[in-house]
């Protein structure tokens, strides 16, 4: 059994804190070499068979350095494939993905329509938004309301368009399907009953991943801000000496540590509900927002320049608030569940 602290140490060694947004391809190769793509894959499928907290440990560290390598979509696609017992050549796909062949999925909800030709061929049309780093991929996992299926990105009826983000550390693409003919050999699941367990794995996976990324980023951004205040001098003293600033930092630190405590208690709980993970994600991403918002203010003018790193954290934090469900949705869901739990 690999200890989480060992994973953390090797991730910190591979991705040193002072190198933000490490080269995408190099980091991707490194992550694949370290075997981190197969962390959650069950041992009987050739993976490491570790829990969600092990995956979260890596994602937290990659969040600290604003890594652009798309580990999150790859882990999600692997979650889907591992749960899709009906997929042809399932073992082969798992091996290919664990080895570094990149297959993203749409992390945002899609509106895809499915039609069936006279010969039984099914065709998909519509836009798959939020496909990360699609230019690195040969295949995509289409997550639509009727079907989960893999598709080659060079197939007829598929076009890939980058949608430029404010976030510099990630790239998202729209994959447009225009009558794409489904290959039955690539279908993971069809119909709501078959889709449900996969959907569950995907949804809890994205919440866990974005929460871990947010907390790693929040911790790094707070560290960076504290260091800046310790070195920046005005009025003949370090800014860190001003109590007004100290107290703001202390409050941020308190928020970060509390959100981390909640997150790790839930990441390590195999029976955790999607609602509780969603609540942890809401808290984590909101705390990341608090930290980046204050980080720019506390850096002053330099925080508004492109050359400084503040904005990199800020933009990623704002994107994280949206991925996996926004605050309004997740909080309302948590409130509704709690209300039901305390039924009169």
């Amino acid at each position, binding site marked *: 059994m690999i200890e989480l602290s060992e994973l953390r140490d090797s991730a910190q060694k591979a991705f040193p804190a002072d190198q933000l947004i490490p080269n995408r391809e190099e980091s991707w190769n490194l992550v694949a070499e370290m075997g981190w793509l197969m962390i959650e894959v069950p041992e009987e499928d050739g993976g490491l068979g570790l829990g969600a907290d092990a995956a979260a440990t890596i994602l937290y560290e990659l969040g600290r350095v604003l890594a652009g390598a798309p580990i999150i979509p790859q882990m999600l696609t692997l979650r889907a494939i591992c749960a899709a017992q009906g997929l042809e050549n399932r073992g082969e796909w798992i091996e290919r993905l664990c080895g570094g062949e990149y297959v993203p999925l749409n992390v945002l909800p899609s509106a895809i329509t499915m039609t069936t030709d006279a010969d039984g061929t099914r065709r998909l049309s519509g836009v798959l938004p939020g496909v990360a780093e699609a230019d690195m991929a040969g295949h995509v996992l289409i997550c639509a309301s009727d079907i989960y299926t893999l598709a080659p990105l060079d197939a007829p009826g598929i076009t890939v368009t980058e949608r430029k983000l404010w976030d510099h550390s990630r790239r998202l693409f729209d994959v447009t399907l225009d009558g794409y003919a489904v290959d039955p050999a690539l279908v993971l699941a069809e119909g709501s009953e078959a889709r449900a367990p996969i959907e569950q794995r995907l949804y809890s996976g994205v919440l866990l991943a974005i929460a871990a990324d947010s907390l790693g980023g929040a911790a790094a951004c707070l560290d960076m801000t*504290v260091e800046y*205040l*310790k070195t920046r001098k005005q009025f003949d*003293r*370090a800014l*860190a*000496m001003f*109590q007004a600033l*100290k*107290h703001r*930092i*202390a*409050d941020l*630190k*308190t928020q970060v*540590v*509390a*959100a981390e*405590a*909640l997150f*790790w*208690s839930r990441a390590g709980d195999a029976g955790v509900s999607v609602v*509780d993970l969603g*609540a*942890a994600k*809401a*808290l984590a991403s909101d705390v990341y927002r608090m930290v980046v918002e204050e980080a720019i203010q506390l850096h002053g003018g330099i925080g508004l320049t492109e050359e400084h790193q503040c904005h990199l954290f800020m933009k990623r934090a704002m994107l994280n608030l949206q991925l996996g469900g926004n*605050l*309004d949705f*997740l*909080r*309302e*869901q*948590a*409130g*509704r*569940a*709690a*209300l039901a*739990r*305390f039924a*009169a």
Partner: protein
Amino acid sequence: MTDTTDLESLRSQVRAWLDANAPRGWRDAYKTMSHEQFAQAQRDWFQKLVEGGYAVPHWPAEWPGGGRGLAEQKVIYEELARADCPRLLLSFVSTYHAASTLFECGNDEQKARYLPAILKGETWCQGFSEPNAGSDLASLKCRAERRGDVYVVNGQKVWSTMAQYADKCLLLVRTSSEGAKQAGITFLLMDMKAKGVTVRPINQIQDDQEYCEMFLDDVEVPVSDRVGEEGAGWAVSQATLSSERGLTLMELSYRMRGALWRIAELIRKTGREGDAGVLRDFGQLVTRVDSACAIADRFLENRLMGIEGVGDASIVKNTYSRVLREYSLLGLRLGGMDEQYHSTITYGDLNTGNWMADFMNSYAWTIAGGSEEVQRNIISERMLGMQREPKGWVL
């Protein structure tokens, strides 16, 4: 004993004992009582816990009910919170602060005289803060002069919890004004019935009388009741203050979680089950309460493993106290105008559903026991290494 099965068996023992012995209907009873009757009810509940063997699990093994590890103490507190037992307000200083001071710094004679009496119900209060020594405790001025076998004490103390019922007092006095202000402090054990001790309960904004001020007028304290050497009181007081090791905040966090149904009930009562804004705020509060529990748990787990960083306790305290405020504010908001009509408080509880009272009570945790601002200084300066202001500024 740290084995999981052992802990679970302890849990079922405690639960069975509480099923048979936990006071029922105490919330209503505490409401109609006088403050004196409340104190008596607290004494009765403490005695019952002593008999059951659950009053002082943190004491050494040679004491009845003692010798429990932190993991076991945690189980006991979780169960007390789950059974919604009254908190032990009256005996808190005796079993934690006084006991810890005596165990760590008391001499054999002091231990033999005072510790068994605590289990028989003798209660202690703390005489630390003064009107001009709050966050800056070391600047205290209450003076003690040695005359033969006694110290003669003159001065004033304030914020002494439940001092009006206390038999004994942990007293910090100044025996010297030379050198660093910490160096002239001495720690005494004072008999509250001694001549010259006047205690006046402070009327608090929520109708409670938990805190007292104390006036000491030529009070004689035998030298044999000094803990540690003369001038070593500051170090002794650190043993007093670090005594409860995070258990209280864990217990209180769990109690707050156990009281979330009050908000749910209010949402229903006011017909706002479909109000998305209210549901969001409730969802956010529930998550914040869960995070307060998670961090209190983690703090205790770290202590169990012998790892505690400077400032960790401050983070736990500031999280709990802020969430407690948020909790009472949401209750107040949902309760609306109804909460503006005065109603009788329940003594000794923080989550009563009397939302104005709960709101006012929540300040106890952002002000007492080291204010939120002092904790922020600890977090920023000692945990994160932000530079201190130069000492000795003259205004």
